[in-house]
């Protein structure tokens, strides 16, 4: 993928790697702020009602305690300021179990943690709406217009008359992001200004939300967030803990550190909603789809709505004349759901791609062939041409590389000793967008040595942003990589899009590239000369004897980008080994073939894809957050109860990229890969489990009990 003499597209090791392997990369709570105090949150033990009384006396008298803040003494905050999930200590009202109801600030963490246990709360409890199985019957049309019923043709009629059809409900549980770094903040006031060392996927978003909620101006808030210990959507929007740290620091007139505990993560920073997805497919006997209906029922918070778009893949994956995509949602006394890796697409593709596998089995057709037969030439949802579409290549190259021909067409035909072996395939897609981002590039010359500094308020949550931007700048400026410094994650820098929704790489790389081009143009103009061969900025600095030069661009997506339907696509291949006696499943081999535009760095890109695959395997096999339907509490509050995949869960992982030069989506042809890596994965695993065992599991995760 790399061009001649370019470092872009080469597998450079992460430039932030040394800091990370030596323990010196500073995450939010690692900053050595002097005279710091420690805050610990305490939470409601009911899911609905009001606080009748709250006795903070014993906590206040506890050694080392500096302040106890509850709704009774918290400063007035703007609850519409952009903080998600409420819980800003503004009223005695309780809307979900584990809502923040106060915090203790003390000299030491040990003292704050202990004192937080001393607060006594009495409630007036009201009936909590927490049993999704019962409440789902009350689900209604979402307020969000994007979730209105989307109809093309008449899917119901086509289903009725279908020769072959699949109609099934697929269940996905609540999941939690659980980044290894719990959401954490250090707040330090300097007069009217506050510095928030925080873990933010959207630096400027955190700045704006914190400022608005604190009723101060954005320029009074500085977010410092160069290193983020994973986010996966939970650090996209900002939650109450960010602002409450600032409130605590103000109250005690000292810097304050507040890190959520792992147990507090389940009801502080959003979750992936539970979904019931009914997918109905109709087809002719030669495998042409005639109808596709994807009807999702889910839940949201009492006050606020969030619905992940489970029907998105179904809108665009297949050529089908009759289509119906619907959403129904019911408010519940649970924390607000939010974006979670591959929002809607990861869970939606589990339903769609499982149903496709069921249909293929019914038709006695290879599931790859079924998909190839229904490949759309344009985006079926809006008729736009694809900026590029690689589904066919992904399937065909993947089949070759994976050895798909070894798959037994009928399930339960491949037994090896105590194990059943199965192969599964599933496709995925995720939109590719560029968002407005600014970037500043500064060149500095000492003699003939030129160094460059690239700055923007972008986020690198392990995605490799530092590295790909250094690569982009090196090539665009004509400098070796080792002369580039990249500074991110600080709201004092030029504003940038968030690292969310797979927009980071395209938005940032295009902005940095544009800034470098602009800088070169300006140096050429400044020289007053004409060049036959366009010189590099580095050459110009020397030839024109410039000591320092800086420029900045505010990059925007191409004007015609919305004339195309731009997406990344993939095909996922899973080999599973199921223990016949115990039902334990291992994914022994996994291959993801991805078409995601220009790959800026195959090493970090591969890691991103495999990371998404691991998430998908977790979704398929291990991850489930369980709510007690009586009280609305999470029973799975710890890593002992909520099973993130462990090392032994992951077998041989392989990644293949399809070369693409998709300049229709954006100038550099860069599409994101953070999300697409998870899409289709759970279905590929579930389809492989079916191929191995003959058991179709439609409720994730596929734990041993479901295969007995």
């Amino acid at each position: 993928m790399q061009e001649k003499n370019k470092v872009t597209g080469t597998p450079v090791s992460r430039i932030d790697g040394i800091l990370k392997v030596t323990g010196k990369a500073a995450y939010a709570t690692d900053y050595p702020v002097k005279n710091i105090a420690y805050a610990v949150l305490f939470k409601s033990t009911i899911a609905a009602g009001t606080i009748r009384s709250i006795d903070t006396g014993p906590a206040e008298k506890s050694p080392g305690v500096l302040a106890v803040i509850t709704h009774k003494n918290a400063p007035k905050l703007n609850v519409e300021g952009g903080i998600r999930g409420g819980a800003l200590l503004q009223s005695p009202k309780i809307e979900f179990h584990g809502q923040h109801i106060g915090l203790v600030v003390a000299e030491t963490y040990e003292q704050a943690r202990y004192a937080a246990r001393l607060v006594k709360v009495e409630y007036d409890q009201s009936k909590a709406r927490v049993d999704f199985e019962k409440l789902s019957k009350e689900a209604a049309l979402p307020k969000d217009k994007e979730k209105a019923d989307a109809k093309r043709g008449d899917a119901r009629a086509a289903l009725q008359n279908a020769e072959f059809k699949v109609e099934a409900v697929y269940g996905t549980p609540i999941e939690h992001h659980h980044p290894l770094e719990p959401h954490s903040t250090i707040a330090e006031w300097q007069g009217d200004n506050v510095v928030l060392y925080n873990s933010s996927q959207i630096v400027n978003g955190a700045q704006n939300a914190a400022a608005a909620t604190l009723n101060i101006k954005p320029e009074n808030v500085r977010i410092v967030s160069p290193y983020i210990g994973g986010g996966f959507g939970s650090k996209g929007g900002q939650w109450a803990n960010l602002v409450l740290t600032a409130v605590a620091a103000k109250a005690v007139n000292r810097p304050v550190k507040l890190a959520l505990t792992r147990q507090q993560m389940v009801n502080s920073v959003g979750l992936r909603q539970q979904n019931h997805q009914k997918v109905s497919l109709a087809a002719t006997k030669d495998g042409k789809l005639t109808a596709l209906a994807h009807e999702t029922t889910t839940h949201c918070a009492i006050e606020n709505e969030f619905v992940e778009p489970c029907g998105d893949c179904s809108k665009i994956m297949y050529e089908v004349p009759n289509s119906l995509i619907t959403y129904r949602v019911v408010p519940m006394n649970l924390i607000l759901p939010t974006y979670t890796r591959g929002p809607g697409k990861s869970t939606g593709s589990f339903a769609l791609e499982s149903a496709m596998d069921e249909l293929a089995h019914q038709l006695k057709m290879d599931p790859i062939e079924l998909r190839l037969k229904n490949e759309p030439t344009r985006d079926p949802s809006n008729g736009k041409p694809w900026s590029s579409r690689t589904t066919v290549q992904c399937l065909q190259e993947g089949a070759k590389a994976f050895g798909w021909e070894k798959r037994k067409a009928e399930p339960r035909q491949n037994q090896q000793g105590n194990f059943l072996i199965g192969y599964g395939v599933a496709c995925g897609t995720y939109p590719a967008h560029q968002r407005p981002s600014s970037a500043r590039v500064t060149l500095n010359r000492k003699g003939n040595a030129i160094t460059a500094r690239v700055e923007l308020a972008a986020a690198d949550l392990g995605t490799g942003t530092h590295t790909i931007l250094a690569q982009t700048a090196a090539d665009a400026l004509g400098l070796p990589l080792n002369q580039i410094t990249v500074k991110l994650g600080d709201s004092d820098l030029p504003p940038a899009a968030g690292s969310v929704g797979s927009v980071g790489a395209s938005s940032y790389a295009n902005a940095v590239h544009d800034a470098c081009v602009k800088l070169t143009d300006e140096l050429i103009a400044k020289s007053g000369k004409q060049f036959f061969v366009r010189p590099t900025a580095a050459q110009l600095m020397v030839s024109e004897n410039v000591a320092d030069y800086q420029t900045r661009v505010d990059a925007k997506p191409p004007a015609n980008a919305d004339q195309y339907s731009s997406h990344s696509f993939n095909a996922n291949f899973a080999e599973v080994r199921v223990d016949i006696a115990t039902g334990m499943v291992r994914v022994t081999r996994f291959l993801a073939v991805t078409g995601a535009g220009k790959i800026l760095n195959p090493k970090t890109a591969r890691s991103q894809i495999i990371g998404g695959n691991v998430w998908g395997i977790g979704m398929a096999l291990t991850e489930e957050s369980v709510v007690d339907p009586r009280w609305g509490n999470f029973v799975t509050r710890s890593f002992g109860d909520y099973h993130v995949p462990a090392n032994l869960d992951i077998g041989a992982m392989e990644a293949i990229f399809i070369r693409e030069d998709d300049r229709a989506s954006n100038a550099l042809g860069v599409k994101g890969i953070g999300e697409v890596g998870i899409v289709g994965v759970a279905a590929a695993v579930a389809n492989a489990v079916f191929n191995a065992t003959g058991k179709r599991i439609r409720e994730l995760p596929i734990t041993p009990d479901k295969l007995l």
Partner: protein
Amino acid sequence: MMEDHNAPDLTEDEKKLFEDLMPEDLDEILDTGVNRRHFLKLMGLAGGGILAWQSAVAEQVFTRSPGGPLPDELSSAAIENGVAVSFKVNGTARKLTVDSRMTLLDTLRERLELTGSKKGCDHGQCGACTVIVDGRRVLSCLTLAATCEGRSVQTIEGLASGTAGTPDRLHPMQTAFLKHDGFQCGFCTPGQICSAVALLDEAKKGEASYVTESIRTKPGPVQLSNEEIRERMSGNLCRCGAYPNIVAAIQEVHSGKPVEQTWQLIG
């Protein structure tokens, strides 16, 4: 496995990098016509060495020097049931009084300015706080500092020899993690690397794991399969999903043989 049909020549930068990696072979390889494809393969194998050349920086607001001076002692009001402890951290003797409730993890992070060890769960369920105490990997979040009297603690900050952060002095495991991209966000990485370093010793001692087939054989140095490494590293969660890269990094150091990184670009 890079598929490249054009196989362009190396850039000057790449030649320089190559020189750094294996200077003695450079002329020969260049004469016999190394193309980009071979180069990239080689670079994949020797990716750790790339650091010598690649000093592009991800800048942060500050970098701290490990094992700096002991910060101001806390006021006595901030310490309850104080316990005086003397122990070694990364070879340096430390003496301080801690609240009896204070864990080793919080002591390292909040009192000794060693924030490399991370708090991922604080309950022994993620491994991000893994440090090496008296030669064995343990969880600093479930270790009371008060129990560390006389112990020797090694943290991520103490693994690199010489001036920490100088690339050529990284611990081989740190180099292998860099080369194999054994992390993304980097938060679990200090724990993973400490765990991996200790694991090498466990293999040398012949310690068994749950997936060891021949449990009854006499303990002696063992060559670990990837499956063995996976099981032995399962106490270190990585939410970014870098497990295959972590296994590759550990296998390379453990076996002493390069483990190839594979990806393909097709079409």
